């Protein structure tokens, strides 16, 4: 797992992951248009390279903490498409049986330690997991993903300082897609690189990476994770990227200049990566097979999710407490 992105099998795996994420999110969008996705959802279209690159640098047993924009990260850690999609549809076969929804995807067995919908909250929580790894002497690391707009909330600051002071094995990955919901982050942020320009305030190195290049992401993430495992403490990585669509399901994203959207669509991480594979001599058929397999996977997941049962009353009152119940009285 300390291999760098140079070997071809890693590259092929990275392409597969990115492509699957792309198709999955597109399908989620279609199902939203069909009115099957309940509640809100925040797609990661355009940001696949970060989820794929970082996940590939992680080991089983490592922990991911994501935001409400967490489909990519959940799938990249190995959670099944069916339970994730079923969760979006509010079905009993969902990843959390419909109790969490799109914003809270969690799969502990895959090290996916939750998606958090309050800006910044998971950054200190990721520190806690890292602390526990350090205390128990395992070599696990925590990775926390967050957006550019998140760098202005208090919890960000507390988590960064805490992680450094306790020298915790945690990696903070800022997915800088330039926008908060409908406001450009630089308009409300005192520095141009919202994460990287803050690194020095915590005695950290300032790291910026092309977030639309899975290889580049894989490399910086591998290095940061290696440092963390070696007891050298936390890192923060700012990955520049762009979301192809709006902020959440209902948002067409019209506030963004056409030029900007065009510019970034031209940097589509998947299109670029595909070209790179071909350049490297990966046979087109192999690539097309991956793509066909991904489509089949998404189709199957769609079927299975749609066939999922409506969650029943038994689930409603379950699992507030560790005893499985919800009684607050005797």
């Amino acid at each position: 797992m300390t291999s760098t992105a140079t070997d071809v099998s890693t590259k092929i795996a990275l392409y597969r992951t990115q492509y699957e994420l792309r198709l999955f999110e597109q399908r989620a969008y279609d199902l939203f248009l069909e009115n099957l996705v309940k509640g809100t959802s925040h797609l990661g279209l355009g940001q696949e390279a970060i989820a794929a690159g970082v996940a590939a640098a992680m080991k089983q047993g490592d922990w991911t903490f994501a935001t409400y924009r967490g489909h990519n990260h959940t799938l990249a850690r190995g959670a099944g498409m069916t339970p994730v999609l079923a969760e979006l549809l509010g079905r009993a076969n969902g990843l959390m049986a419909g109790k969490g929804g799109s914003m809270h995807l969690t799969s502990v067995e895959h090290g996916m330690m939750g998606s958090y919908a309050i800006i910044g909250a998971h950054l200190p929580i990721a520190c806690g997991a890292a602390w526990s790894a350090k205390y128990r002497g395992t070599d696990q690391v925590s990775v926390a993903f967050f957006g550019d707009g998140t760098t202005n909330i208090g919890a960000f600051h507390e988590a960064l300082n805490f992680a450094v002071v306790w020298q915790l094995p945690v990696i903070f990955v800022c997915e800088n897609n330039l926008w908060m919901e409908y406001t450009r982050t630089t308009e409300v942020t005192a520095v141009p690189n919202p994460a990287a320009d803050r690194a020095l305030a915590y005695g950290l190195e300032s790291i910026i990476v092309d977030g639309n290049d899975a290889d580049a992401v894989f490399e910086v993430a591998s290095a940061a994770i290696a440092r963390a495992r070696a007891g050298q403490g936390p890192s923060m990585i700012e990955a520049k990227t762009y979301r192809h669509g709006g902020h959440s399901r209902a948002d067409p994203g019209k506030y963004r200049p056409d030029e900007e959207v065009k510019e970034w669509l031209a940097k589509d991480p998947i299109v670029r990566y595909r070209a790179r594979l071909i350049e490297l001599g990966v046979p087109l058929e192999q690539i097309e097979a991956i793509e066909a397999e991904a489509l089949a996977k998404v189709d199957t997941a769609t079927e299975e999710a749609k066939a999922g049962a409506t969650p029943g009353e038994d689930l409603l009152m379950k699992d507030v407490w560790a005893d499985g119940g919800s009684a607050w009285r005797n």
Partner: protein
Amino acid sequence: MAQLTYREAIARGIAQEMRRDESVVFLGEDVAAAGGVFKGTVGLLEEFGPQRVRDTPISEQAILGAAMGAAMTGLRPIAEIMFADFFAVCWDIVANEIAKSRYMTNGQMSFPLVIRSGNGGGLRFGAQHSQDVSNWAMMIPGLKVVAPSNALDVIGLMAASIRDDDPVIFLESKGLYASKTEVPDTDVVDTLGSAKVLRHGGDATIVSLGMMVPRALAAAEELAGHGIDCTVLDVRSLVPLDTQTILREVSATGRLFTVEENPRLCGWGAELSSIVTEEVFYDLDGPSVRITTPHIPLPAADALEDMALPSVERIVTTIEKSMNS
């Protein structure tokens, strides 16, 4: 008169007061250029300009701190906390600073400000975007707490809140944003601390708030068909609380049912039930009964959320069972 949605009424109420008073300013996340994530503040930037209608960073403590500091120095700020659940990241500014500072300074300062927020469930947003926080606010001395149930009340209570010299937590029911009400074209100004009797009946009094009001009314209609005739009250403001109207109406029917959106423990219904028990015990013909969300986080799936929130059906069966036992 025109039909207005609850969401449109927000901007209408704010604009009405901004026109009248230059000291009214408005800030929050995505509220200006975008008109708010619930489209509740569309048009304000265009009419009042970027000095009075301002987008902020994702920094809720800064937003409310700014509102507090501005209020103590002569402005009348309105701040938006996008989802009421986010009060949890800035609760100190609300509960320890804004609420307590007038008292602690022996009245040297006033805090004429409004914090408006999308409150409660119904939109399948899951547990971190759906909590009804009316009791969070009610329990803090020094906060006024308002929760309108229709577009007309939104305008009138918003105006009253902005004109009030004390901090007001203004809770907008997310589940009602799309609902429509007839409103006059002229200015509307209401009064804080006045409950409304929406229906008269002799058998029991149902007290409700926010998104629960239309459900309580629908339940009352259905109960009338079953021979149980209910008075329905819309509390509208938890602080100040119109105990006079509530006690009068409960005494008249002899029975109290509260319909609350918040999870079970320590909701406003508990407070109300305890007031009724303490003050008009001998007028009661039977137990006061609270209908609430169970004491669980709100689930995301539509089917589950619908089971959790008090429904018309649950209100009807609960009241029927209690009245017939």
